[in-house]
């Protein structure tokens, strides 16, 4: 069994309540930080831990914190990014629903380190019931004096609020999130300035993912060095992985970074293998935006080394043969799945979620969806595959925010690794609609495509 730092007590009955949470040692990090540590010391521990942003970008958290500007007389803010919307990702929802106090505890400890008097948890609107769970936990924390004035008699005051979004993937981008929190459209800001200098209300702000903030709790409790001892290389600590698709046991798993991908997919401790013991076809390892990899490349790197669940190992080989850990949204496809149709759902998703601010993303995402639709309809041409390739290349890196890249990468990787499947759709034209016929000739089971 791997070490559990976040989900250790997830199965304890009543762990969502303050009393049980405290019986299990909850809020110790707040007490320790406020009573025995300076804010700078907390930042140092986080730096030592090697913790990297768990929302997808993997940026070192301690470094992000140390960038925070501290002009005198200007308030600073901590904002928790709970706008989890990356297809394939549901770990933050699980964590907030099951152990809401872990996030609240992390918010207080992190706010102390950053000198933030006020913090906001921005949660996607669809998670309304989770927001209610958080509200209840916050109310409990206020009542126990863990939030509000003079926490643990330390002189540190803190208020924490939950803010719900209203349905926009783009608000997971930190500057779009801040715009939304200010009551505006979720249009990403043009950077610089970065939030560390001018964020919420123009004040210095740190925006961190739910899991990142929760990880501050064990880091303060056990020390950054202990956290850094877990994992492999620069991938320190544990990571929540949302596993879904054609696996026997979908769900959220806390892994020590460095677990082999093969073990993660097939061992009973994690996914338990493929449904009906069918063959693995492909995996999207880190949420919809990261490159899809075929079975051979997800299990082993191009050099033949076992692929590990870590930032570095998953990225090994660059985009030619590697992918990214991303948000840890692990979508497994067995041999019955159509990569082309799955890509269609992704292109539709990014088209739907583009904010429309900058032209390559606004126009390009819709164009890609239309071409994918045409190919699925059996009207595609070989030229359409080249056109798709060219459009994604013209979006990537040309947009205001990373949504453009997120829309481009799945298209590029699907064509890179599964070109023959696209060509098959094109070659067989309309007959592809007769899916049964198509697949029976290939000797593999019928897909869910209808």
């Amino acid at each position, binding site marked *: 069994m791997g070490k559990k730092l976040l989900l250790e007590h997830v199965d304890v009955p009543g762990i969502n309540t303050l009393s049980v949470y405290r019986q299990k040692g909850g809020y110790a990090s707040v007490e320790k930080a406020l009573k025995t540590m300076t804010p700078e010391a907390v930042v140092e521990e986080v730096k030592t831990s090697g913790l990297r942003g768990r929302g997808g970008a993997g940026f070192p958290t301690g470094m992000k914190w140390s960038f925070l500007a501290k002009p005198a007389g200007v308030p600073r803010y901590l904002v928790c990014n709970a706008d989890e*919307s990356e297809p394939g990702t549901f770990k933050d929802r699980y964590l907030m629903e099951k152990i809401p106090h872990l996030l609240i505890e992390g918010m207080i400890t992190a706010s102390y380190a950053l000198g933030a008097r006020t913090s906001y948890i921005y949660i996607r609107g*669809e998670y309304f019931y989770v927001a209610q769970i958080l509200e209840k936990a916050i109310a409990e924390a206020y009542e126990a004096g863990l939030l509000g004035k003079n926490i643990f008699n330390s002189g540190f005051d803190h208020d924490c609020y939950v*803010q719900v979004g*209203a*349905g926009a993937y783009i608000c997971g981008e930190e500057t779009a999130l801040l715009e939304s929190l200010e*009551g505006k459209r979720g249009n990403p800001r043009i950077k610089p300035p970065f939030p560390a200098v001018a964020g919420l209300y123009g004040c210095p702000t740190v925006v961190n993912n739910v899991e990142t903030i929760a990880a501050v709790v064990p880091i303060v409790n056990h020390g950054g060095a202990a956290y850094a001892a877990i994992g492999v290389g620069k991938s320190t600590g544990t990571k929540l992985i949302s596993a879904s698709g054609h696996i026997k046991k*979908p*769900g959220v798993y806390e892994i020590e970074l460095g677990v082999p991908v093969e073990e993660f997919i097939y061992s009973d401790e994690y996914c338990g293998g493929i449904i009906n013991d069918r063959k693995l076809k492909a995996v999207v390892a880190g949420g*919809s935006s990261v490159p899809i990899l075929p079975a051979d490349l997800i299990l082993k790197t191009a050099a033949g080394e076992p692929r590990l669940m870590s930032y570095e190992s998953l990225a090994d080989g660059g985009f030619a043969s590697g992918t990214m850990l991303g948000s840890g949204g692990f979508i497994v496809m067995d041999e019955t799945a159509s990569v082309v149709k799955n890509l269609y*759902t992704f292109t539709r998703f990014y088209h739907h979620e583009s904010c429309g601010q900058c032209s390559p993303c606004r126009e390009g995402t819709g164009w890609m969806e239309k071409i994918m639709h045409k190919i699925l309809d059996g009207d595609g041409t070989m030229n359409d595959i080249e056109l798709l390739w060219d459009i994604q290349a013209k979006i990537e890196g040309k947009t205001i925010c990373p949504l453009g890249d997120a829309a481009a990468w799945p298209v590029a990787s699907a064509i890179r690794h599964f070109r023959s499947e696209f060509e098959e759709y094109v070659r067989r034209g309309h007959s592809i609609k007769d899916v049964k016929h198509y697949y029976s000739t290939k000797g593999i089971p019928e897909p869910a495509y209808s």
Partner: protein
Amino acid sequence: MEIDQKREIRFNEETMATVQKIIKRYPEGREKSALIPILHIAQAEFDGWLSPATMDYVASILNIQPIEVYEVASFYSMFNLNPVGKCLIEVCRTSSCWLMGAEDVVRHIEKKLNIHVGETTADGQFTLKTVECLGSCGTAPMMQVGHEYHENLTLEKVDELLNKWKAEGKRSRYC
């Protein structure tokens, strides 16, 4: 859907108190931050959608231009700018849900209710929508009705739920 033109748009005292409490979460001069939370409340209070009159009312509470509210309300997919049925069914259609049979669920509901995606039943009871990833990939396929998640759907489970909602005839709401 028929629109009740005479619908009075005004929060009751209790709701107004909640709204004022929300506004106080933000620093002075930043009251506009309360816009999205208040729009949720307004949508829930006034028949599940945001009419221009409702949005103008929210603008007046926050002392901002009506266009600022229209801009925001039309950006976010959870805000309905047209009337919807009492029961708004939102079926997730992205990757994992598709892999696990979301399309079958959509087809089934379409047949059962005799409507297409985006339409409302003649009795005004159900509106069917497809939505993008709701973060329920491990429990796919799924649908959301009001603030409730219904996961690991089977067609039988869908039937049960539809029958239940039909019998109850209540309006689903997020908040």
